[in-house]
């Protein structure tokens, strides 16, 4: 398949759908479903002005901060818990319960504790993103290859070196899976924490549009949110491919003729 053909296939359906949307809504009188033309115009007006910096950027920074905290805590605790069978057995029921609490439910709790400012939003994100990372890390640490373990013992590789060269790398595929789930949850929580009760941020702005019946603007906000989700997902995919290049190579080698 030539490159041109590949591009055509990849963009064919999306472009067709977009075109359909444009045409179908061109003469729309519906209040709730304005013409795509208007939405795109509103998009340019609303966001490409100062709002990207004022509202969107802080939201994304909060998201990344929350993910970072959840990542460090999740991996740290995960390594600790995953390395000790007794600790795992003790903590497992508690962790399973805490992770089953739908994260949005904690928003009111955090509002109670931390008000409606930045702290609350970051806390909400951390509280939701911690679990996938933590639990996946525990899994990854637990499922270490015994032979690599023996190799380390035989060559006297202990402590910090062992953590750095055996435990973390061998758990990294699982940890990255956890991070991917955390990213998805983080985006949702970022938006929810701003929609529920907040004074700034992307989610808050969209809800304001909705309440003020600024429909094209609201749609443009939804569009932006969608683009943000896609952009972050792509960025993560790039990161994953680099960080786990050895893993993908290994799987490919195992699958194909050795």
């Amino acid at each position, binding site marked *: 398949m030539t490159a041109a053909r590949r591009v055509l*296939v*990849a*963009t*064919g*359906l*999306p472009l067709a*759908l977009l075109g359909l949307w444009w045409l179908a809504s061109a003469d729309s009188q519906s209040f*709730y479903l304005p013409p795509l033309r208007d939405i795109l115009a509103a998009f340019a007006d609303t966001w490409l002005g100062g709002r990207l910096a004022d509202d969107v950027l802080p939201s994304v920074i909060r998201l990344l901060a929350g993910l970072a905290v959840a990542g460090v805590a999740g991996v740290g605790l995960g390594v600790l818990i995953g390395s000790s069978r007794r600790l795992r*057995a*003790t*903590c*497992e*029921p*508690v962790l*399973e*319960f*805490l992770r*089953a*609490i*739908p*994260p*949005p*439910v*904690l*928003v*009111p*709790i955090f*509002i*109670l*504790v931390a008000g409606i400012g930045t702290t609350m939003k970051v806390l909400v994100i951390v509280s939701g993103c911690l679990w996938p990372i933590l639990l996946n890390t525990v899994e990854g640490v637990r499922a270490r290859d015994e032979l690599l373990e023996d190799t380390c013992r035989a060559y006297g590789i202990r402590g910090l070196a062992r953590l750095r060269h055996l435990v973390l790398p061998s758990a990294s595929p699982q940890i990255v899976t956890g991070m991917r789930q955390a990213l*998805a949850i983080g*985006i*949702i929580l970022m*938006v*929810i924490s701003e*929609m*529920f009760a907040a004074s700034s941020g992307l*989610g808050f702005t*969209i*809800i304001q*549009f*909705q309440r003020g019946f600024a*429909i094209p603007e*609201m*749609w443009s*906000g*939804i569009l932006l*949110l*969608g683009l943000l*989700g*896609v952009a*972050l*997902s792509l960025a993560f995919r790039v990161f994953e491919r680099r960080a786990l290049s050895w893993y993908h190579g290994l799987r490919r080698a195992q699958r194909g003729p050795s």
Partner: protein
Amino acid sequence: MAGLAGFLVLLEIAPRVGLVPERYLPPTSRIAAALADELGEPSFWVALGDTLEGWAIGLALAVAGGVGLGLLIGSVPALRAATASTIEFLRPIPSVALIPLAVLLFGTDLRSKLLLVVYASFWQVLVQVLHGVQDVDPVAMDTAHSYRLGRFARVRHVVWPTTLPYAMTGFRLAAAVALVLAITAELIIGSPGLGKEIAVAQTSGAVPAMYALVVVAGLLGVVVNLGARALERRVLAWHPSTRREVAA
């Protein structure tokens, strides 16, 4: 179990001792009392029922759509290639982006909840089913072809059994996501259900009741998760992959 008990004891002591302000985190006993109160209120059970209703209907729709579309797209290579980019683009769009739209279109109706639940859960099922169809053993397919099995028979005897474990995984993930979205819709949009009760409790300052409802939400999550896993085991008990696992 000891861990759980220890955790509960810790939560009981911490606020009493002053480690955590009681205003923010009431002792476990107070929460338990509030929980008992809630269980006596008929409004609680109505709310629980509303949540479960949205969850169940949304999940059913998502599974039906995800499996049907997944099998269709997965079995026709041209379709799969054409839709790949669209799926990859739509999938990461956070379902919460649809909240304003849902509010406008359906208000606090059940349908707004369903919009969110179905949208989020559908992708979980679809992606898994697509993986499953892709995993079909080409040798098995060739065998079916050579025995002149029609398209439907091929799906039934080759594609579906291979896809089933993936579909079950998708179901399990979708069940969890559906619950999260149902409660989210109630929390933010105000659709009737547990989420709405929690929001109400928070705004009216009934802190122990709020925590009690959060506990219920958590327990619901645990039950859904366990139930999905149990169903998975039952359905796949006949499947060679789980049979092998059990024997190992």
